[in-house]
Structures are given as C-alpha cells and as structure tokens.
C-alpha cells in the first residue's frame, strides 16, 4: 500500500542523507521525497511517499524515529489528509493544437506561466494522479519537458504535526 510519511527533522547538513541512506540500506521504496525548512528555520519538514506492507511501514516509521535528528514522524495516510504536488510542464503548442492545449490546461486548472511562439510552460498542482491524468490527456509527442516536486501533505482538520 502507498503511504505518505511526514517527518520533522533538525535542519542540519547530513540529516537528509541519513534518511535517504536508511531507505536504501534497508531496501525500502521511495516514490518521492521532498524537503524544505519550516517556519522555524532550525527544523525541516520532509514528505516521503513510499509503499510496503503494514509490517514494512511499521519498521520504516520506527527506524526513522531512531535517527537522532528526526524529531517526529507521522504516517499521514492513517487519517484524512491533503496531498499536493506541483508540476511544471513545457509543451509544444503550435497551429490548431495551441488552442486545444490551452483548453486542456484550463480544464485541469493549470496556469500558463510562459509563452513562446511554439510552446507553453504550464503550472499544475494536485494529487499525483491528477498530474498523471493531465499528461495522459495531452498528446505525448507534445511534451517537451516535465518537472515534478513529489508530493507534500498535511492532515485534515485539527490534527497537526509540530514539536
């Protein structure tokens, strides 16, 4: 099963490699990993999308908690949560396809950030599957470049992750 794990950790050099090293050394999957400092600059928040059986996910959270720099770990997928990913995509947009591309971007609530005679650069946010759906919806040969942040997530309601 797919899980979204949120981690608060000390914003110190080396902390990231400790986390990624743990995943590779113990053979855990990483689908995506994002990290940036929080409002408290001494702390970073990391979101890891991983998959595994319940036993494996239990070990992942326990092993993460063991790392000295890790302050808190939660599995967001245990409760209602919001997940978002950002994608920037550059597409070929010429001739009659140009209008069609804009229409599809609008349907997906994408924003065109940059325009040239032959291209659009579009910003899209949403769940990973929404971004996948956009890629499917347009002509594959029109895609020039994509870049995705990987998911970040937060719990719904009153549930919060902080120290």
């Amino acid at each position: 099963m797919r899980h979204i794990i949120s981690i608060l950790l000390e914003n110190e050099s080396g902390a990231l490699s400790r986390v990624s090293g743990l995943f590779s050394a113990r053979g855990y999957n990483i689908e995506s990993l994002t990290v940036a400092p929080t409002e408290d600059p001494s702390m970073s928040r990391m979101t890891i999308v991983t998959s595994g059986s319940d036993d494996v996910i239990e070990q992942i959270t326990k092993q993460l908690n063991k790392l000295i720099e890790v302050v808190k770990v939660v599995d967001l997928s245990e409760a209602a949560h919001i997940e978002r990913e950002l994608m920037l995509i550059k597409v070929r947009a010429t001739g009659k396809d140009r209008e069609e591309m804009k229409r599809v971007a609008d349907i997906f609530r994408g924003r065109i950030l940059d325009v040239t005679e032959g291209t659009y650069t579009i910003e899209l946010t949403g769940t990973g599957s929404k971004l996948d759906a956009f890629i499917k919806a347009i002509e594959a040969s029109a895609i020039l470049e994509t870049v995705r942040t990987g998911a970040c997530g937060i719990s719904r309601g009153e549930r919060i992750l902080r120290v």
Partner: protein
Amino acid sequence: MRNPGAESLTGAEILVRCLHEENVEYVFGYPGGAVLYIYDELFKQDKVKHVLVRHEQGAAHAADGYSRASNKIGVCLVTSGPGVTNAVTGIATAYMDSIPMVVITGQVPTHAIGLDAFQEVDAVGITRPCVKHNILVKDVRDLAPSIKKAFHIARTGRPGPVLVDVPKDVTAASCAFEYPETLRLRSYNPAGKGHPGQIKKAAQMLLGAKCPMVYSGGGVILSDAAPQLTRLVRMLGFPCTNTLMGLGGYPATDPQFLGMLGMHGTYEANMAMQHCDVLLAVGARFDDRVIGNPAHFGEVPRKIIHIDIDPSSISKRVRVDVPIVGDVREVLDDLIKMLEASRDKPDPKALKAWWERIGQWRSKDCLRYDHVSKIIKPQAVVERLWEVTKGDAIVTSDVGQHQMWVAQLYKFDKPRRWINSGGLGTMGFGLPAAMGAQFANPGSTVVCVTGEASFQMCIQELSTCRQYHLPLKIVCLNNRYMGMVRQWQEFFHGNRYSESYLDALPDFVKLVESYGHVGMRIEKPADIEPALKEAFSRKDQLVFMDFITDQTENVFPMVPGGKGISEMILAEEL
C-alpha cells in the same frame, strides 16, 4: 550561555579536556597527520592514558572490548583517511552488538574538505550505516558540545558507537572552553520505564502459562540487569535460555538454565523455545541465527512478551503480543514487584509436567563428544579451561567453531565475562578485545580463545600486549582449517573444501616468542590440563597455547539455514 570568564583553549586542548570531563581512562589509538595537534596535547598530560595499537582495527576492537568488560565507554582515536577506513570493521562490529563507544577521527582541514585532499575520506559518509550517530565538527565552538553529545548518545537508550570527525584546523583554532553540564536534545528521548499496563498484562500472561520460557539476550548484559533476570526466573521457576550475546545474564551452572539457543544452541533450549506456550523475550532481537526460519517458528501458537528499549527490535521478525518498550532493568524491577504483590502463582502441576518434558530433551545430552579420543578434542580444551580458571575468567573469542564451543561449554555465571562478536562475526576481534578487557580489569584473568585463522587477522597486536605487559592467556584451537567454513562445506557442499585449508601456517610458538611472549604447543589430550595450569601460573606473562586439535570435529547441534529451530542436526545423526 557562554561563560565570559571561561579560558580560551585550542581545539586539541578542548578535546583532551572533554575526555577528562568524561573520566576517560584510556584512549586506544594510532597517530597520523590529521591528529597531530591532539597527540601533542595527549603528550602534555597524563590523566588520559593512550594505548598505542598496531592497526586501527585493533584500536576499535580494544575500545569495544574495554566497554563490554566494564560498561564504561571505550574511546578510540585514529587519523583521517586510512586510519578511518581501517577502523570501520571495528566500528561496525560494535554497532551490530550495540556497544557504546566514542570514535574520534582526524579529518583534513575544513578548507580542504571535498577537494580530494591527501588522506581525505568522507568519514561521516563511510560510517553512517554502522554508527548510532556521527558528527562532523566544522567550528571549534561546536567541539565540546559535540563530544558531550557523542558520549551521551553512545551510552543511553540502545547503546552504540558514535563517531566525531574533527578537521585539523579545528584542533588548531581556539575558543572559550566550557564543558556543557546538561544536554537538551528535542529529537532524542530514549525510553526508561515500561508502560505499567503492559507490564501488568505480561505478569498475568506469565502466571497463566503452562509451558513458559524465558529467552534473554544482550540487552540484559547492556543494562546490567543480570540480578533482576536471575531473581525473576528463580521466583517463577521457569526455564531460561540465553542468546550468544546474552550469556552470563543468567548463571549457566543453575539447573533452570537450558544453555544457549539458536543455530548452535542446545537441543533442550531449542525444543523448549519452539514448544512453549508463553515466551518472555528480554533484551533479545529474534535474530535469524536464533529462531531459524520465522515461518516454522510461527507454526506453533505461543504468546510472546517482548521487553526491548528499541521499538524497532519489536515485531521486526516475529509478531509479538505484549510489547514493552523500556530499559530491561527498570521493566524487570516493576515486573518483579507486580508478581510479588500478586496472590497468584504459576500452576505447579503444569510446570512440573513441562520440566519433565524438558528433562527428556535434556537427556539427549546434545553437547557430548568423544572423551577417549587420542587426538585433542577442542571441546575438552574448553571444559578443562573452565575448570582451571574456576569459571571465573573473562573470555574473549574470535569467530568460528572455537567461538561456539566456548559459548556451549564455558559456563558463564556472571555478565560481562563473555566477549565476542555476534552480530557482525568479525574474525580478528578476540585479541584486541582481550587487550581492552584487560585494561578495564587489570587484576582479572583474561583469556582469548581463538582459531589459527582468526588469530592471524589481528596478530600484530601481540606487540601491543608486549609494550603494555598484558598477561593475556591465548588458547588457540588449531585445527588447520577455517573450521566453521569447512563444516558448512562438509554438510552443504559435498565435502569440497574450497580454500578453507590453512596452508603455510606459522610456527606460533616461535612467532609469539619473537614478540617476547611465551609459547606452548600441546598435542596430547593428557597434556591439556597440565599445560593450562602451567600457563595460568605465569601470572605476569602472555602465554599462547597452540592446541593441535581434531581437524574433523564439528559443532553440534546445528540448525541448517532456512530450517526451523527444532530441526537440528545432532552428532549421532551423521
């Protein structure tokens, strides 16, 4: 707050002062360019004594052995680059067995880091998977807090080695020195007491058991909880087994002790482990060499209570019913109190029937061997060693058959007497670990039981033993084979002894003599005891005893890889 009146010291001075603050007696190390300022400061004082080893692997093992034999923190100091890489085996050895240790490594100057400087290696990167934590100190002002943190993390919670990497310019730079008295780590709060509700559940489960079993491991030794464990097992009247790392946690000469369990455990311990209905696991981690095939182990429905300080040890390989996260000593204290307060007692009839079953398993006498052989049987040497030392020595070992025979036959009644590499299984561990153990216990008898292959992996430390007059007694069970490898080749690879015969062995007697020690060669069973007596009477000398043993002897029982623990090969079945 930094104290404005604090004196200004160089990083090297600060480092040595930190060692004073931590009451470090010995540093096991080897000098080199990156640590010259530190060595200079060591030279100027005599509070911390430096032990010069002959290879950095030896430094790490000696610090580790010191720690295991004393529960003080072993400290080791090596230079950058090859100094660090040489020490890695020793660091990983300590890590796998959860041994507290602080490793200080020199590093190239901060401005040279990342430029492929002379003797530069990413020490923090290379050791990350085999330390509890590591720290690169980039600013002299962080040095004292980092050392404080290293000692704190190494000794608390599930212990382990911590490495502090100190660039050369940091040891030369100065700042005000103040050793922090306290340490606040928001991200690190190891467990202490166990959850009372869980302990209560455990107590009820134990009292309701018909076929109970207590299985304890290295956690009991690490938390100095042998008295608590012994008390608990005796008050309940339950059988008890120890892992290789847990030996000495419960007195081996006690009738309630079933011996070690696992791959080379006794028949009775493995059968009782498999067939019990309630299992109390104490500071043990259900290792693959202990429970064999987990699916086979899981075929028998038993309730499991697991006490461990590290939540990740719990339900890792085997699902447990009552997890108790906490320090063994504290949890056992609470459990004992609860059991004492309870009016219930374990069912005496059920227990009697269970002991009868165990008695039948015991009567297999699974460790017996040929007592009339004309060639020295290795087991006989270990049994005579136990008699001659009155079971009272600190015994280190290397890795192989000889290690298993000591574990099976030297009956350890007390903790911290049995010092071996279980998790990593590092050949070469025995001699340097014995040095560390002797430094920690200057008045005690320290024996290293080794094999002729293992011994050659850190043989250079004989020179260190000479320099510091360490009167170790070395028992070499010389079978001219990598015996443990040969045994697997005999059982599982059609007797093809690929590269496991040791050709061109040195004359060990002459070799140790050249280091200034005493050597003996023993070839007849009748000479075992007189030789041991003679060796142990030489109180001030290192004596190496080269016992020429039966080349074909195997370690039994044996659980082959992938089999269940009750599926043992016994001696008679071959």
